[in-house]
């Protein structure tokens, strides 16, 4: 019980990092996804390069580059800011690909009929295709959010006081190697379960509102 109390203290930090990073990624992912579909080849290539770099470097390496590299040489960042920034950028890369998949899944006829009604390209995207693409992307985005929740544990390595940080500190202080980490695992599973359930419900609802 004692371990549970100690580990639970880290839960808000884990949730802050996960939620803020997801929001940053959800916003930054949009221009990246649209860039991947640009009619201008250099924009397409650049977007793809950025996405590949964001997704191709392990999260812990990103955090180290931001915290130890940029954080000591260029601007001072605390562990929390560095984690949110790092995971936000990584999430942008993954969510851009998820959005792209969503856009591909929207039926061609939706583009064509909107254009036939005289809508501009941006109106088609904002009013017709975008909302449907978001609905299609939702289950993958939710799966990614659950993954992000678990990945955020890596923030412990740069000293963000989240779940694993608390477990590690407790393990060092008491010499108990197993119990604090098992408790941490249980907490992650408990946190992830409602998210998984929510995504299933939301998916079923949204799916009903997409033209096939």
């Amino acid at each position: 019980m004692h371990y549970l109390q100690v580990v639970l203290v880290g839960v808000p930090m884990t949730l802050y990092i996960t939620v803020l990073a997801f929001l940053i990624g959800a916003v930054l992912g949009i221009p990246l996804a649209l860039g991947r579909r640009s009619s201008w080849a250099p924009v397409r290539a650049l977007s793809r390069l950025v996405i590949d770099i964001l997704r191709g470097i392990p999260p812990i390496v990103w955090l180290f580059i931001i915290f130890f590299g940029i954080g000591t040489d260029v601007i001072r960042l605390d562990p929390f800011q560095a984690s949110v920034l790092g995971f936000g950028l990584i999430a942008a890369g993954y969510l851009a690909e998820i959005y792209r998949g969503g856009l591909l899944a929207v039926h061609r006829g939706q583009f064509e009929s909107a254009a036939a009604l005289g809508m501009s390209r941006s109106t088609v995207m904002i009013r017709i295709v975008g909302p449907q693409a978001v609905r299609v992307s939702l289950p993958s985005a939710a799966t990614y959010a659950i993954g992000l929740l678990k990945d955020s544990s890596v923030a412990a390595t740069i000293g963000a006081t989240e779940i694993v940080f608390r477990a590690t500190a407790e393990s060092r202080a008491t010499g108990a190697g197993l119990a604090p980490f098992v408790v941490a695992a249980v907490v992650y599973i408990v946190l992830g379960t409602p998210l998984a359930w929510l995504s299933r419900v939301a998916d079923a609802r949204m799916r009903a509102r997409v033209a096939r």
Partner: protein
Amino acid sequence: MNDPLLDAWGSWLPRLLDGLWLSVQVAGASLILGIPLGLVLALLVSSTRTGVRVPAILLVEIGRGTPALVTLQIVYFGLPSSGLTVGSFTAAVVALALTTGAYTSEILRAGLQAVPHGEIEAASALAMSHRDTLRFIVIPQGVRIAIPALMGFAILIFQATSLAFTIALPELLSQAFSIGSNTFRYLDVLVLAGLLYLIITVPSGWLTSWTERRMARHL
């Protein structure tokens, strides 16, 4: 080479390449042990017997719900307290193999389910036993269907080897960090380490999508 950054990169490269090689070894060993484990779990989860299926599902959900970093800490710091001391290489491989087993079981289960039902009916019409149907019909085709997804997962496991930094395994990130703390040029050395990760992950990503497209042709 007069550029100070390139000079520094040149002098650090041998150590970082040693680290990269160790990362590749950890990833390879984890996948070799983890994917068969995933196949066994996938078959157990697909079992018709509740007594087999429920514990298997529980195991998979625990394995997928726990962050790889936590699994790693449990194996490295937790097992010694039950009398089993493991080195950091073994701990990294065991932890990542367990994670691989849990995740790939879901990938492989989807693959096994994608084998057309007519194949199983045809096998039973030929009086094949359940075991032979699995062995000769379902598993070979199901695993083949799962290959692109397994390749995508392999890239993630390669990235996850960087978590072994926390248990002092001298893989790529550990090497880069130790150079950083000696020279105080964290940004320069970490960027080089990042590039070395990209050299593996980006072409592997291309190979994965190429395989995906190629296999889609035959379905």
